[in-house]
């Protein structure tokens, strides 16, 4: 064996136990120091404002890649955790609306009122109005009754409506009797077109 190697081997046999002993002593000493230290007291003695004052946040933020950070965020999972109802409960809508200047809002909106009205099918709108309830539930009925009163007009309306009812009744029965398979047009062509337009 090479004398140099023998010397190194002997040295190693001596240094390894010594190194392990030193390691154990150091760990023990650290444990004792940590146990002896009152971290809270230590933190209280630190002037955090002074420390933070020395930190250049802007520099740090400039070094942060926000896009990469956001790319790692699962927004859907985040939103799934949000209780929207609770969130909305906390919003005071009336106060919010009080702060909205509706006139200014409408002024900013590019709304062409005429074009908007042109797009509304007024005839369809009128057809949807429940005239029966409108006449019966409002003072409109009284106004119409007073303006169109008269025994003659009432009798005329009654006679005509009865006649139309009988016409329809007879037409149904004649249709059955002659086994009319296909009903004719209800009105002349020009008037049907007029109906379609109205």
């Amino acid at each position, binding site marked *: 064996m090479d004398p140099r190697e023998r010397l190194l081997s002997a040295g190693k046999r001596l240094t390894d136990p010594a190194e392990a002993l030193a390691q154990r002593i150091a760990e023990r000493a650290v444990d004792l120091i940590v146990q002896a230290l009152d971290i809270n007291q230590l933190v209280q003695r630190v002037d955090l404002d002074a420390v933070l004052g020395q930190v250049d946040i802007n520099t740090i933020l400039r070094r942060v890649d926000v896009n990469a950070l956001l790319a790692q965020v699962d927004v859907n999972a985040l939103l799934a955790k949000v209780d929207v109802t609770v969130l909305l409960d906390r919003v005071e809508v009336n106060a919010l609306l009080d702060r909205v200047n509706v006139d200014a809002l409408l002024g900013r909106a590019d709304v062409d009122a005429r074009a908007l009205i042109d797009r509304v099918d007024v005839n369809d709108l009128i057809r949807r109005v429940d*005239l*029966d309830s409108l*006449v*019966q539930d409002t003072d*409109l*009925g*009284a*106004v*119409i*009754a*007073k303006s*169109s*009163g008269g025994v003659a*007009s*009432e009798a*005329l*309306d009654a*006679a*005509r*409506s009865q*006649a*139309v*009812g*009988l*016409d*329809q009744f*007879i*037409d149904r029965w*004649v249709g059955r009797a*002659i086994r*009319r398979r296909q*009903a*004719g*047009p*209800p*009105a*002349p*062509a*020009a*008037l*049907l077109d*007029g*109906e379609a337009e109205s």
Partner: protein
Amino acid sequence: MSTRTPPAGWVSSQGHYAGAVSRFLAFVIDVLVSSGLAALGLAATALVVQVVTGHSVSWDRTNIVVAIIFVAWEFFYFGYSWAASGRTFGMAVLGVRVVRADGHGLDPWRGVVRALVFPLSFLFFGLGFLGILVQREHRALHDLIAGTAVIYAWDARAARIRFLARDAEAGPGGR
């Protein structure tokens, strides 16, 4: 809510072909009115003749002159009414009117033709009127010849509103 509220079915009938009952009732009214006017006219004529000449005149129904005058009057009554406005007095009461077969307003000459061919529908026990019942457009023989049709022309929607208004005015227990 009154029980007199009319059904809404006839509201949409405006412009539709008129049925047999409306047309028959209109015709009955026209016959009564035109006959009454004819009788009134003959009575007035007899009175004038009596006053002027001193002779009393009695109109005999079997007299051919009276018959011709009556037929001419009836033709004038119906022909003029249809040519002028597309409706007679009876039709106005029932809210029906005569139009061209395609639905446009009646030409005066077509009204006159309709009056001329109208008697044809009475032939063979009124067979010509059968078309009002069975024809798809409710057109009688004289309608087919003259190229006309009869439609409902009254504002049923307005009538229904008037009905409802009267009921509303009368109140829940009204009438």
